[in-house]
């Protein structure tokens, strides 16, 4: 058995979640090879080779791999697939877009978004927005698996020295062209990996009021999340959405402000270690998952919260 792990990166650095995917891959089998497809991405290959759990790094470079178009990536992976029993990558928008294209070409039924490796062919995955956990067994000879990064710890990132080999590029798929990417740059921790997340919902009333949340996020070095309603209403951009159709977060502390707690939102945050809910409706379903619930008007509570935090002198970063 050996596992081909498709690394996610930006041609310069490995994306943090690749480390979580490597952990999952190594639980399937210890012979994990990392595949880095990109353009001028030698630094990424180097970083991958330093992961102690990775036994070999394969790199495939071409100009048309610069923008991670699935139509270009899939043929590279299917060509290499012959040597592997499992193909693994993260279930974020990169992996969700790419893996089914590989699985279909290999005539394999993909197992999506696993949260646990039971054995090399058996996995646990959430269904119905996390309201049920299904244990599934793949009977395909070759298995295509996407993993939920927040359900696995990141692997060590240094100490390894796996050999780096280059593999052949595939042909360019000319019918899909990358135009542009609008990335929202911020100095804040990333939503997916932050230790603390504070999220606002429709109760925030408008985008301007999110500055109440921003001030607390700054103080706590927290990432900012949002409900779909807040994103749909234009209070904040889509990359902040937490939930079934947004991002899944598992921070040590999740603070939900003006969020009612619809099951689709809970799907993205209910595994958080400590949950705080601030809502003026005492019956709001969010309170049913909250460790600490504060029934209050957020426009009064948030400024007080900031004040209390300012009083504490030992905020750990």
């Amino acid at each position, binding site marked *: 058995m050996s596992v081909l792990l498709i690394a996610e990166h930006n041609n310069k650095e490995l994306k943090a979640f690749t480390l979580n995917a490597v952990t999952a891959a190594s639980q399937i089998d210890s012979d994990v090879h990392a595949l880095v497809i990109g353009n001028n991405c030698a630094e990424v290959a180097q970083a991958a080779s330093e992961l102690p759990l990775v036994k070999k790094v394969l790199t495939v470079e071409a100009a048309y791999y610069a923008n991670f178009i*699935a*139509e270009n990536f899939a043929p590279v992976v299917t060509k290499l697939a012959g040597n592997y029993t499992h193909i693994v990558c993260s279930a974020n*928008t*990169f992996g*969700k*877009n*790419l893996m*089914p*294209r590989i*699985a*279909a070409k290999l*005539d*394999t*039924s*993909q197992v*999506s978004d696993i949260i646990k490796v039971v054995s090399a062919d*058996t996995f646990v995955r*959430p269904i*119905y*927005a*996390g*309201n*049920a*956990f*299904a*244990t*599934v*067994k793949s*009977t395909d000879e070759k298995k295509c698996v996407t993993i939920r990064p927040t359900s696995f710890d990141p692997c060590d990132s240094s100490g390894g020295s796996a050999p780096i080999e280059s593999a052949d590029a595939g042909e360019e798929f000319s*019918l*899909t*062209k*990358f*135009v*542009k*990417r*609008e*990335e929202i740059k911020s100095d804040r921790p990333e939503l*997916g990996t932050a230790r*603390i997340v504070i999220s606002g919902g429709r109760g925030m009333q408008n985008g301007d009021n999110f500055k109440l949340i921003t001030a607390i996020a700054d103080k706590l070095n927290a990432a900012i999340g949002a409900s779909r309603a807040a994103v*749909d209403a234009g209070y904040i*951009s*889509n*990359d902040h959405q937490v939930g079934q*159709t947004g991002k899944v977060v598992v921070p*040590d*502390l999740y603070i939900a402000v003006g969020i009612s707690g619809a099951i689709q939102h809970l799907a993205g945050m*209910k595994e958080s270690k*400590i*949950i705080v809910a601030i809502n003026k409706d*005492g019956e709001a379903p969010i309170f049913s998952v*909250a*460790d*600490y619930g*504060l029934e209050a008007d957020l426009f009064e509570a948030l400024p007080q*919260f900031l004040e*209390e935090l300012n009083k*504490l002198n030992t*905020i*750990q970063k």
Partner: protein
Amino acid sequence: MKILVAVKRVIDYNVQVRVKDDGSGVVTENVKMSTNPPDDNAIEEAVKIKESGKAKEIVAITVGEEKAQETVRKALAVGADRGIHVKVGGAIEPLAVSKILKKIVDKEKPDLVFMGKQAIDDDCNQTGQMLSALLNWPQATFASKIEIKDRKLEVIREIDEGLETIEINTPAIVTCDLRLNEPRYASLPNIMKAKKKPIEQLNASDLGVDVSPKIQQLKVEEPPKRKAGIKVSSVAELVQKLKNEAKVI
């Protein structure tokens, strides 16, 4: 232009899903079923394109048991011209659905196939990408804006980092996000009219597609429950608890 739209019947998103005591699945008896929400966005987008004069025909297709037809009927009521129902009993995996859809695409030769970005029951997020792989067509997944430019589409995709714009040649597959548009409700006269629109019925076996599952569902369980929390009476108390009890700040 001709647009094929795939619609799936799922447990309504408002239903609190319950796991069966024997661990064999979730309770689906006497549970409200609806069209998978982003599939409504897929239909809506197709209808808008037709209304703008850029499409001539919309065909709605579903794969599933007898009652799955209701989703096609609903699509017809909001503007699809005709329907196709491929009958299969029991659960069917995205790979098999995409093989069935490929057979239909080979026959119908649409310029575009619109689908939802994920089905809210199994959350697989696979079918559109698999279909485009089988057809070797471009795929624009998680679309929140579509602009038609002659034989090309410019699509804005929602990705983890923000937004990405790609340009794809038709024929192509687009999987739709909920933010793509605001689905309309069917009016009563249109619901009546939809009853006369044709729905072609086929069996998966007639299409020569093997639908036998390759993934065995061993058991379905309830996720671990969170232990009940407490209500705090003031912000000061909250901050004290977070610091001294939970030790997270």
